[in-house]
């Protein structure tokens, strides 16, 4: 190759190389706001020299490749951190909802309803035969039930929302994995020698989006395709195949290549799915269980005290609030089907029968044997039937224990130390046995005079101004009861429990403080993770993102080089002209 020809070809190559570099700069500037775009750099190198006329001469410039300026380690750390951050953001959002449900700084909260309820018993004690006090007490009780029902319903609603989110999330994951598999196919199809930078970026962006849904691991194969697995190693994408997840309403399942579906619910810890599952399987059930424990204990304590008392009016008929599944089974055993069967102990209660003038016609002590072979619903009914065949009938109908007096006769109860009346739901204040089912005894709604403020006296008399039972009820708010706090963990359906002895209100407060503490700690870790993610993101941006200033500097650099190369062409041209003009 001779002189001017070499110069011209060097100039041509330089023009092309600078133009390519300008193209890359243009591409970078154009993508300055593209999420996940990695800044590209043209790698220029001097061509191999060739010997000419005894010297070795350089032969210009060449564009070797265009590389992505990427630090894979930081990309991966950032992705993982963002995945954790998403989990926390979701938990935080739901905890905020949960806090709002408990709504403790307002007057409509459960704890203020509870206080009002106890105060209403004080008011009744101050005026035991007052109908206004009785109606107010009934309404206070109904508000407590309503607050419990609402909370329980809200918990269910939250769980439903999470399940809907899980369903949509799984669909998103499947779309993303399918797209990643598609890109794998394209990248592998281009062969190992090509570098499809923008496809890599696109794939990385998809993986990042996928990591917002669940915790991931990934690695690149020799052919350039990316294998993506869940945090625990279940393969989601392998070469051009993607393995779908599915959601069956409760569990997230992984459709593996060959064998049956696998339940991977408990292995997902990161991303939105991790946050949702933590909320659904750990946080919500723990608090819901505690709320039910609170409702159950409150209902039982109030009912038990209520069943010891007597209203302004005596009973002419009473139906138990709790269902018996088998009247032939011992009342104190689980087979009886009673919700509070375990509260029944050996003991007795007194049934007072009054004639149509209100005088005591019979008083019978009925003994309860809670052990195997002991009292059944049927045997209790026959014992009551034996008191006065013509005027008093007891039976189990539709699963409820019923006592009816006839001929103007009426009856009342006293001194039940076997808890059998409260367990059967006879002469009780509430019905139900958890937050969802808590309700007022319907018999009280139609006749508030059945609210038991008094107790039957030793000779069967019931004084209208007797407030013994109402006073005992007002004391329940100070009584310390042994209860249990529950904590669920992922992958186990049985919670760990810790026993506490505290008042009903204190139990509620510790439940609420636990919600507050958890919410606070989730917010703190979210904030901490956010700072780290921001820093990592900045580091990543500083390595990989586009700087307009820098690109503009490069633009001018390459532009000048282009002008200079063009000058080379015109110089070569002038040299040719000079030669040709020589005569």
């Amino acid at each position, binding site marked *: 190759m001779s002189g001017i020809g070499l110069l011209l070809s060097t100039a041509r190559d330089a023009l092309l190389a600078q133009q390519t570099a300008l193209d890359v700069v243009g591409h970078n500037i154009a993508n300055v706001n593209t999420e996940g775009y990695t800044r590209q750099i043209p790698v220029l190198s001097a061509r191999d020299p060739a010997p000419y006329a005894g010297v070795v001469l350089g032969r210009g410039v060449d564009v070797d490749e265009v590389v992505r300026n990427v630090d894979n380690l930081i990309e991966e750390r950032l992705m993982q951190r963002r995945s954790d951050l998403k989990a926390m953001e979701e938990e935080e959002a739901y905890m905020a909802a949960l806090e709002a449900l408990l709504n403790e700084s307002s007057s409509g909260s459960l704890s203020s309803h509870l206080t009002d309820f106890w105060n209403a018993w004080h008011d009744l004690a*101050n005026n035991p035969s007052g109908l206004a006090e009785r109606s107010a007490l009934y309404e206070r009780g109904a508000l407590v039930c309503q607050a419990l029902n609402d909370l329980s319903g809200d918990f269910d609603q939250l769980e439903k929302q999470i399940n809907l989110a899980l369903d949509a999330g799984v669909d998103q994951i499947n779309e993303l994995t399918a797209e990643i598999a598609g890109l794998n196919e394209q990248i592998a199809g281009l062969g190992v020698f090509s570098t499809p930078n923008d496809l890599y970026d696109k794939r990385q962006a998809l993986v990042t989006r996928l990591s917002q849904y669940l915790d991931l691991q990934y690695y690149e194969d020799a052919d350039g395709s990316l294998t993506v697995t869940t945090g625990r190693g279940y393969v989601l994408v392998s070469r051009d195949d993607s393995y779908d997840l599915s959601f069956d309403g409760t569990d997230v399942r992984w459709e593996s290549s060959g064998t049956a579906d696998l339940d991977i619910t408990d292995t997902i810890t990161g991303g939105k799915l991790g946050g949702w599952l933590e909320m659904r399987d750990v946080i919500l059930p723990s608090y819901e269980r505690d709320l039910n424990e609170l409702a159950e204990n409150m209902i039982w304590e109030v009912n038990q005290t209520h069943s010891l008392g007597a209203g302004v009016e005596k009973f002419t008929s009473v139906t138990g609030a709790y269902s018996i599944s088998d009247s032939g089974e011992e009342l104190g055993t689980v087979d009886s089907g009673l919700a509070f069967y375990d509260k029944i102990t050996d003991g007795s209660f007194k049934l007072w029968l009054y004639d149509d003038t209100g005088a005591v016609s019979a008083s019978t002590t009925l003994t309860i044997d809670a052990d195997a072979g002991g009292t059944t619903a049927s045997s209790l009914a026959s014992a009551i039937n034996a008191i006065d065949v013509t005027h008093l009938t007891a039976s189990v109908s539709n699963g409820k224990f019923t006592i009816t007096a006839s001929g103007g006769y009426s009856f009342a109860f006293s001194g039940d130390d076997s808890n059998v009346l409260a367990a059967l739901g006879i002469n009780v204040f509430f019905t139900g046995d958890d937050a969802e089912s808590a309700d007022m005894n319907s018999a009280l709604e139609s006749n508030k005079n059945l609210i038991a403020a008094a107790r039957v006296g030793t000779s069967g008399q019931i*004084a*209208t101004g007797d407030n013994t039972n109402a006073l005992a009820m007002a004391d329940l708010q*100070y009584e310390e009861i042994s209860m249990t706090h529950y904590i669920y963990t992922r992958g186990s359906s049985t919670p760990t429990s810790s026993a506490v002895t505290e008042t009903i209100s*204190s139990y509620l407060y510790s439940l*609420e403080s636990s919600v507050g503490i958890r*919410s606070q700690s989730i917010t703190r870790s979210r904030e901490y993770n956010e700072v780290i993610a921001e820093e990592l993101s900045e580091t990543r941006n500083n390595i990989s993102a*586009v700087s307009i200033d820098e690109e503009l500097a490069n633009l001018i650099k390459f532009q000048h080089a282009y002008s200079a190369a063009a000058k080379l062409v015109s110089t070569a041209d002038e040299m040719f002209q000079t030669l040709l003009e020589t005569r």
Partner: protein
Amino acid sequence: MRISTNSVYDSVKANITRVSDQMLRANLIVSTGKRINKLSDDPVGMVSVLDLRSDIKNLEQLERNITMGRTWLKTGEAALTQVEDILSQVKSLAIQMASENVGSSERSAAAETVDGLLRQVLALANSKVGDRYIFGGTNTDTTPFSFDDEDTPPEVTYAGNASAFSIKIGNDLEVAVGKDGEQIFGDDDFDWSNASAGEDNIFKTLLDLKGYLESDSTAGIQGALTKLDNHLSTVNAAISDIGTRIIRLDVKENIIADLKLSYTDRMSRIEDADIAEAIMDLQSRQVAYQAALASSSKILKVSLVDYL
């Protein structure tokens, strides 16, 4: 160090978000006047607040109980003081009439007076607070003492019971504010179902006295005087007992008032924001926010493009 364009935007965005979030939080504290606005702001403090709030409500209820109890006791005190006056009046009348110098016409006039006073005592024994009888034990809805002068001999019967009506003034702390009427107006072992059997009560003494006056029996009148003295001391004892109970309620009420004050104070300390401090905080956040906006707008404007 290389700074990418997006880093600049991202950090401006993040900083402004953070500062404005802090400013809003400071604003919430100022506008609600409360340091704790939700559970997670201070879970431990919040629980103390809840506890105190329900304690205060409970104390307020106890205050209401005490106010009601005091009405009962004061009504009882007033009624018994009047009974005491009447009995003293009857006593001086009886002393007069016991004299041999008094004629039978005067005695029969005195008998009429005693009859009138008897009915006054009866009305006082049936004293009520609202609709509730206070001297009927816990049978508050039935007239405790009824007089049937058609009966021979005429007698007063008691329809109340022996348990006293109580109110709650604290955890496991009850004070009887009603009275078992039998204790005051009759002997402990008086058999109301058989008044003629000979035991003693105020009404029987008065009825007997009336009879003795009508029959000019000075010996009978003398005997009635002794019984009147006994009744007077019983009523006196009952009045001083009521006085003690009123003092007990007053003491308890003072304790409750003090407790309520200290609870409210404690609650306010935990829950309420120091307004001066909160406003200062809000202002410093505002300044930070304005500074962030001002400096950010300067950084964002600068670009090499402008100089080419």
